């Protein structure tokens, strides 16, 4: 575990995350393990310990995608609550039935119906992240990406 993936051609993977943890975990060296076991560099953007000793950290993690995913897995297994600082909405193509219902509620045209093929297209560039589609898509094809 923790062998740095030595692939120089790979661009560094960087994500900002919010970590919340309860008083029991405050004393565990979780951030230290992220560095040591998963070879992730980090910047602490914000750190707070609340009166009841529960804590909040906003971290900018840099490493490889693989180590990042494993690091997040480790955090979740240690009982801390991890959330991406910026969420992204994406479409699960396996679930989309191209019904076109989203045309009625996506106000940015990120979801649009091509009238010649009658297929629905998703353009992440146009998406405002309003998340309306996450519960309004009847097939539950629109998902919030946590990472």
């Amino acid at each position, binding site marked *: 575990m923790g062998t740095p993936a030595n692939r120089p051609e790979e661009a560094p993977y960087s994500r900002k995350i919010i970590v919340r943890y309860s008083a029991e975990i405050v004393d565990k060296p979780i951030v230290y393990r992220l560095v040591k076991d998963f070879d992730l560099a980090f910047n602490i953007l914000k750190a707070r310990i609340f009166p009841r000793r529960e804590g909040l950290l906003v971290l900018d993690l840099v490493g490889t995608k693989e180590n990042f995913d494993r690091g997040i897995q480790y955090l979740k297994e240690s009982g801390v609550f991890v959330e991406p600082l910026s969420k992204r909405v994406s479409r699960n193509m396996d*679930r989309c*039935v*191209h*019904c*076109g*219902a*989203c*045309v*009625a*509620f996506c106000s940015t045209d990120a979801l649009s*119906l091509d*009238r010649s*093929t*009658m*297929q*629905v297209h998703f353009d992440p560039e146009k998406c405002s992240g309003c998340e309306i589609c996450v*519960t*309004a898509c*009847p*097939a*539950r094809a629109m998902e919030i990406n946590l990472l």
Partner: protein
Amino acid sequence: MKPCKVTKTYREINEKIRRRKAVVVTAEEIIDIVDRHGEEEAARRVDVVTTGTFSPMCSSGAFLNFGHSSPRIKASRVWLNDVPAYGGIAAVDCYIGATEVVEGDPLNSVYPGEFNYGGGHVIEDLVSGNVIRLRAEGYGTDCYPSKRLERNITLKDLPDAMLFNPRNAYQNYNVAVNLSDKTIYTYMGVLRPRMANANYSTSGQLSPLFNDPYYETIGIGTAIFLGGTRGYVAWPGTQHNPNVPRTAKGIPREGAGTIAVIGNLKEMDPRWLVGASILGYGVSLYVGIGVPIPVLNERMARHAAVRDEDIVMNVFDYGMDVPSGNPKSLGEVTFKDLRSGAVTLNGRKIPSAPLSSYFKAQEIAALLKERIEKGEFFLGEPQWTLPSVAPDKKGP
């Protein structure tokens, strides 16, 4: 009705299918053929026209038999993944309805309710081969002493499972708008205030019952594409009503025909049965249906050549009129306009959005065409066609 020059029988067409000589086209392709060659020549050339629709269809569900346990139970209350199923049928039979919501769902108490899981999803999970938690309670009898049963099941383990949908494939349906000044969440989807969008749910020229508007070839025993496999029309669907105003070409201007359909759930495919969560309304099931229309004569060729501009639909206000039980039409629009992305109502241009997947409807029509061409799917001659209008009221 004048006598037809071309007359073919189901038997003749099935014989051609058997020899892989049948000429099969989709409901989109027949339009051009009739245009170019006329309906009589089209009827000579083409044997079958395939249609398709894929839409959330309430009034769907499945009868399941889950087999006897030891000791035996007369399961009077049944849950599948915590979704109540109706158990008052027999000891180990139940019916899981598409719109039943999972127990403990907050429903609309957190408005608009999300309705993430229900009967439609149980059916999708079953056909996907997923494990379902079956829970049953009985009151105990001398012959069925057990009072509780809990077991994991998959569709494979069930002795029998049939999809039986009492009302599907509505011939025509309302277009929904919202005249009120707040967003509403309906079975016709999200409707933004002051008529900001118009929602509809049909596949127009591809839709089964628009292609045989008087149900001359559709009735009990008509073989259809249902959920990916061969199913049948079992009966006229509930609310079937042929006697509605129609256009000169016989296209109903409102609801009209429906079909009750049946098929073996074990042969079905989650591509064509998808659970639906309709925000603020509830759960349902997307059902894929395709009906092959035999071109028995030039009359059927003409009917099957129906096009989007021939189809008119009435617009209703779901903000006030429909919920209060006083629906009055705000005007008529054509399916052609709806499909183009905007309709004009009282001089105002309103963006339109479907609930029904035209793309999947096309896929179904193409798949059914392929199966018939390959000699894998035969026509089922109806024993009795659906109730229609009196013969003298039928159009040309």
